[in-house]
């Protein structure tokens, strides 16, 4: 099931929320688990078994790791040393999770790469396996890995109830495309849900969900409507069209994913849960480091904590190496294609340059220059990310920098220009929902609220033509 379906908006979500608050608090984790599996099975029931396997494996591993690390009476950490048994169970959890991810997400890519090398060397080719990518696997796998890793490092406490753990892994608002939550943040909330739905949570839930819906359907999809045809004909663009396609996609991916995240967070509020902020106006970033603290925050912090720090990020002599490879892996996480890997490497290089300059106390002068410079670098990155092949990306870059070619014009729809100007202005200057929600501003006028409601309704009317959430494909 998708958030952008009438079944979800008019049947599943209202029913799930109402039932959740009606049933006794102790049964809520069970209810959330059932609802989340139903939500997932709606897409393809077979893959819910896969999620169950991940859940069982990590819950079991977690239990054994906890036995080695925590006191069975007090549930407090009793030993600081990493016992061998804990290490074995952690390894088992990592191999199982990453193995599943490697098989379902990267097997085809791996074989295709081997074939390409083999063809270059004059060898034969292996059949490329056609494997369906289970929805949300990158997200729930990372969430589940986080639990065993944190347990091993003593940064979270064991979840003793399997149902609570299953609810944590499968929580439907976060299931398809995050945010990638952590057990130490979410599990206590699942264990102790509030008694009732408060006004604040209700209002924030509705506001976040409506804002997300509007961002996705009325902005991201409208931009895509104009810019996707340009990408479909990427090899024949004029310079003007190449810029329009690059800026259009940069806005599309931001509003698409930020819209999804807001809808997820809104649903969280309506269930009395606080889910992590995922975007903090990333196109307002003053440098590339700042960008990565604002873009897909739950993922970038995940890579910081579980990859960068682990592969030497805290060691002075290894930190650049660790930074670069963390970004390469981050790129690979997004999809099984070389364009994603190179996109990650591109950001790795940008971050390296940024940190080297910062160490030498060389900084951008002025906020606006920093924002504009960062934005351009990010937009170039999105060209690599969006292009089907590196050849296409290269051709689009050639067009973008063929300044003499601007005289040839091209057909950039007025709608795309207008939407891009509005969307970019809002992305840079407008408050994001979290800022809006904490501002001690006077209550919005009723007519303004009514307009938001009407816009959300229009979004529902046209959502049948919506494209799937971009990040749900990763």
């Amino acid at each position, binding site marked *: 099931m998708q958030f952008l379906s*009438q*079944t979800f908006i*008019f049947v599943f979500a209202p029913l799930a929320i109402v039932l959740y608050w009606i049933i006794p608090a102790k049964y809520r984790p069970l209810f959330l688990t059932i609802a989340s599996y139903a939500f997932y099975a709606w897409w393809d029931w077979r893959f819910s078994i896969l999620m169950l396997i991940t859940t069982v494996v990590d819950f079991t591993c977690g239990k054994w790791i*906890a036995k080695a690390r925590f006191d069975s009476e007090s*549930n407090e950490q009793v030993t600081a040393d990493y016992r061998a048994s804990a290490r074995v169970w952690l390894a088992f959890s990592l191999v199982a999770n990453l193995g599943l991810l490697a098989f379902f997400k990267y097997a085809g890519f791996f074989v295709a790469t081997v074939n390409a090398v083999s063809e270059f060397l004059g060898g034969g080719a292996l059949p490329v396996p056609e494997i369906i990518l289970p929805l949300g696997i990158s997200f729930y796998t990372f969430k589940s890995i986080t639990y065993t890793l944190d347990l091993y490092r003593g*940064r*979270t*406490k*064991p*979840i003793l*109830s399997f149902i609570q753990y299953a609810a944590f892994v499968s929580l439907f608002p976060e299931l398809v495309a995050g*945010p990638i939550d*952590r057990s*130490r*943040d979410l*599990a*206590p909330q699942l*264990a*102790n849900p*509030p008694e009732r739905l408060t*006004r*604040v*949570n209700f*209002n924030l839930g*509705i*506001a976040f969900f*409506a804002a997300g819906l509007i961002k996705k359907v009325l902005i991201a999809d409208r931009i895509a*409507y104009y810019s*996707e*045809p340009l990408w*479909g*004909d990427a090899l024949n663009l004029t310079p003007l069209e190449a810029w329009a396609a690059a800026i259009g996609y940069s806005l599309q991916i931001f509003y698409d994913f930020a819209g999804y995240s807001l809808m997820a967070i809104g649903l969280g509020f309506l269930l009395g849960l*606080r889910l*992590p*902020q*995922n975007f*903090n106006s990333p196109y307002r970033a003053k440098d590339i480091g700042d960008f990565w603290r604002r873009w897909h*925050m*739950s993922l970038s*912090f*995940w890579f*910081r904590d579980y990859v960068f720090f682990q592969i030497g990020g805290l060691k002075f002599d290894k930190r650049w190496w660790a930074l670069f490879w963390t970004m390469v892996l981050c790129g690979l996480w997004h999809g099984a294609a070389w364009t994603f890997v190179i996109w990650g490497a591109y950001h790795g290089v940008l971050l390296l340059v940024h940190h080297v300059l910062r160490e030498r106390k060389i900084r951008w002068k002025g906020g606006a220059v920093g924002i504009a410079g960062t934005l351009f670098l990010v937009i170039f990155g999105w060209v690599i990310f969006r292009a*089907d092949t590196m050849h296409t990306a290269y051709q689009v870059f050639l067009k973008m920098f063929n300044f003499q070619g601007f005289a040839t014009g091209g*057909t950039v729809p007025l709608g795309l220009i207008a939407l891009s100007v509005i969307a970019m202005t809002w992305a840079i200057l407008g408050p994001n929902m*979290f800022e809006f*929600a*904490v501002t*001690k*501003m006077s*209550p*919005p006028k*009723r007519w303004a*609220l*009514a*307009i938001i*409601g*009407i816009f959300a*309704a229009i979004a529902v*009317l046209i959502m049948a*033509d919506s494209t799937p959430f971009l990040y749900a494909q990763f």
Partner: protein
Amino acid sequence: MLKRFGNAEDRSAGSGASRGAVSGDKNAKKSPGWAARWPGAVVLIAFIATLSCAALLNFIVNPFGLYPGNLLDYRPENYRKQKFLLVHNYKLEPETVIIGSSRAMTMPPREVSHYLPGLCFNFSVASATAEDYYAIAMLTVDELGIPISRVVLAVDYEAFNPVIPVLPEARYFGEFSKHLVLSPDLKERKFEKFAQLISLQQTDESYNVLMRKIRGGDENPKLRVERDGLMVHVAREKAIAEGTFKLAEVLDERVRKYPERSLKLSGYTGVDTRRMEYLELFLDFCDEHGIAVYAYITPYHPELWKVLDGIPGSKVLDTVRETLDVKFAEHGVTLHDFSRIESFLGDKSRFYDEIHPMPITQIRILRELFAREGIERRDGGNG
């Protein structure tokens, strides 16, 4: 026993990803004043009210004929239903039917009658896919009781794309949908019919109908379906006559959008197996009833081919054509490939847009089709 995990006080500082100071109970003091009142209710009421208005409008106008009422006494824009009613109400008894999508709707049945004996009716319908071929044949022979002898089948590449859904007008027209035998999931569903009440497509059409009613006109000013099933592009023909029709501008606006918006090329990785089964059913049905089939692939405008030829994914169209060639050949039918206008000496200026040929182009297609099938024009003319 280990204690249950945590309580509110145990909550750690978090992952670094802020949960904001916008939480529920504990941080309510940090929340803005507005969030503690009922703005959510206002948003929700406006949301529900807007959707209710759209649903009411759609129910009353009923532009696709999906619901029982027809308060505005309007002929539904459901071509499947319209054509069924044309044959039924006028008691037509065609010997030949033209089956295809909107691309074949401008094929003049009168022209077919120059080559084949008896009456011809154009039963082409909007966005026809393989299941429509079978359902139309069943509708004509079984439902309407007309023993047709020949079918001119206009096959679109899109008709075998697994990503392209079946239109609501096929799903919710009972006489039609009951022939979607291989797709129990496509048969009428109450909830989906209800869900269609708040679809933009229907709301847009309801609004147009309402505006036409207010202005005193009944018919769709852009399109008209004649008694023999032929569709006339009224507005475009008028623009052509006045010299204001600019094909180049239409192509400029539409051609680039086509591969993803309409052909849905990124999801078209192979021939839809269920749709191939429908084709098999259709061809079996024709074999059993002794119906001769004259089949061709509909043309794209050369400008669209220019774009498609630059997209690696469009290679799938070759695969589709090869698969269809084999399937048709198994039933002794030749599928003529007219997807490029050179194949039938078409004129690229005689298109309404990137996929819809003008009637003059359809006449050229028919001339080439029947020439290849060895059928001469009965009146001896050359068309």
